[in-house]
């Protein structure tokens, strides 16, 4: 390219403009991210453009990114629907001087400066494996997974990490994965088929918010509440009902508000010429600090576990 450079040079004193890209709009998780981003923006004196495609596709996200690039924002933080497909577009953004980070769902290394993981894949995998072991009666029994689409990357890497962590719990037997494609009716149907196929199933793990809700509803409808426990990753506001009923005794999630807050902080600091060199600690304001490793990945913390005792309190927040 002979295209003009340095479109997004944030002159000191001018308000920073940060584009935060969601996987898709209309989900509780990203609403909470938005909240956190707004909070950080207020403290930083930055402007947030929160956007995302209608459906969670890479092509849709690229159109959104093109619009942000054209607006010459100073930084972009993205939770990618596809780690690779958005890379060329993000590279173009970087060529034009826009600082790019990914949060939540990573972009391949070539397409961003750093990735802010809410938690490391390893920690997440370990946490859900631990949840499953705690929920299985005496730590023994079959577990199965209701995933989103087969192509969803963070699902797949969490799943891989969970499988790696499973040998620590010898009582657990891994029965398989089904894909609910992040649509309610298919997730529901697949869950029903799972319990039919494995009548002795002890725990269903679902790592997607549509999946866990649909799986919980299916288990409730099948009259298996208490017998087959559902756990995984979900939002307190979406699962509070099932926690009360005992379908989902506990589950984990990181705080999406904090994630949005932190992503905005990182993006702002990069835009203000901070250099995320190996090992540099970047301050995240009220959430603490994060260090990025050689791959530019920084993890915030272990996912937080919610159960009867605290879910009501958080359901009101996100």
């Amino acid at each position, binding site marked *: 390219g002979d295209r003009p450079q340095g479109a997004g040079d944030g002159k000191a004193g001018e308000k920073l403009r940060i584009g935060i890209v969601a996987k898709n*709009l*209309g989900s509780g998780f990203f609403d909470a991210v938005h909240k956190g981003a707004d909070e950080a923006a207020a403290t930083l004196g930055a402007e947030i453009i929160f956007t995302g495609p209608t*459906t969670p596709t890479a092509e849709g996200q690229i159109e959104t990114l093109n619009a942000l690039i054209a607006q010459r924002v100073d930084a972009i933080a993205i939770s990618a629907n596809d780690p690779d497909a958005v890379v060329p577009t993000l590279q173009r953004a970087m060529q034009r001087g826009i600082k790019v980070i990914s949060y939540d769902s990573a972009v391949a290394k070539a397409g961003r400066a750093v990735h802010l993981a809410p938690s490391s894949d390893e920690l997440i995998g370990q946490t859900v494996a631990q949840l499953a072991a705690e929920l299985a009666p005496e730590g023994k029994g079959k577990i199965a997974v209701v995933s989103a689409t087969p192509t969803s990357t963070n699902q797949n890497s969490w799943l891989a990490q969970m499988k790696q962590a499973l040998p620590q719990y010898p009582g657990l037997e891994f029965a398989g994965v089904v894909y609910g494609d992040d649509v309610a009716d298919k997730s529901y149907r697949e869950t029903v088929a799972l319990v039919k196929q494995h009548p002795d199933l002890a725990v269903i793990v679902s790592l997607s918010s549509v999946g866990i809700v649909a799986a919980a509803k299916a288990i409730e409808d099948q009259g298996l509440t208490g017998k087959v426990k559902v756990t995984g990753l979900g939002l307190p506001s979406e699962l509070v009902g099932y926690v009360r009923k005992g379908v989902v005794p506990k589950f984990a999630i990181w705080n999406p508000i904090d994630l949005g807050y932190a992503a905005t902080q990182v993006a702002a600091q990069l835009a203000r010429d901070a250099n995320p060199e190996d090992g540099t600690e970047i301050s995240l304001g009220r959430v603490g600090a994060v260090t990025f490793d050689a791959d530019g990945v920084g993890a915030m913390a272990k996912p937080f576990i919610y159960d009867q005792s605290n879910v009501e309190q958080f359901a009101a927040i996100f």
Partner: protein
Amino acid sequence: MIPMMQNSAARRDLALGVIVVLLLASVTAAFPQFAQPGNLAEILDDSAILILLALGQMLVILTRGIDLSIAANLALSGMLVALLNKNYPGLGVAPVLLIALVSGTLLGAINGLLVWRLKLPPIVVTLGTMSVYRGVIYLLSGGTWVNDNHMSPQFLGFIRYELLGLTLLSWLAIFAVAAFAVVMRYTVLGRNLYTAGGNPAAATYTGIDPGRMQCIAYTICGAIAGLCGYLWVARFAVAYTDIALGFELQVIAACLIGGVAIAGGIGTVAGVVLGCLFIGVIRNALPLIGISPFWQMGINGLVIVVAAVLSARRREDKRAILEAQAA
């Protein structure tokens, strides 16, 4: 005895029935629990919404239309009643049903009026309203979810109420099938839908306004979609912008497999129900017999293609002119 109507249609329904039974039998061979009454009841429960929607869609296709907005209508009406229930949990189920029906009817009537009054092509109208209705859900809900803890127990429990081993949802579908069977065959309205769809130009000569019949079809289809909005939300206990996204294609596929002619005027209630059961059996059986999830979609597609080829009308009925050769 009622004379055998639409012989070719009846033959086709029979063939599809045989295919469905064969399918059931072969799945049962691989997985014996499949044919147990409990499981069959669940398949019916799972197919009920599809059946209801497909019956509505059938009316539209019969009159030479198509309703791509059916799933968006469902989602919008579903969100509406979910929000209603969230904000007024004490209202009970009757107003919820009413609102769902009214909202669905209105949304369907918008399609119908655009097609009738402005004579716009149905595919354009419903492609447009599909996007618009989806967008309105987002505006209505602010993009948030309505979850099971926001829904009252009556709201959720109504459709799961069991009667003679079947859920109320299943009974609703059965009732709709029976009602449609009677209306389509024994009432002037039903027959006029076939008439107007079979030959709209000729229909005007007999005093039937095909545009009006289309409008009626869209409105009924919309009412059903609205009702299904409640059923869907109550069944899966969640409402958000994207529920039932892309479901319209499944509904249309069920109709087409069930022998409803895209060119209008041809289609039976029995065929549509069989088409839905066909899809219902396949989508319940594939995960159960442990087909790799990556292969399920391909197999689904293959089955649809094969069914379409088998049921294509390859040859027109010939007219018998020759008299038997005198010996």
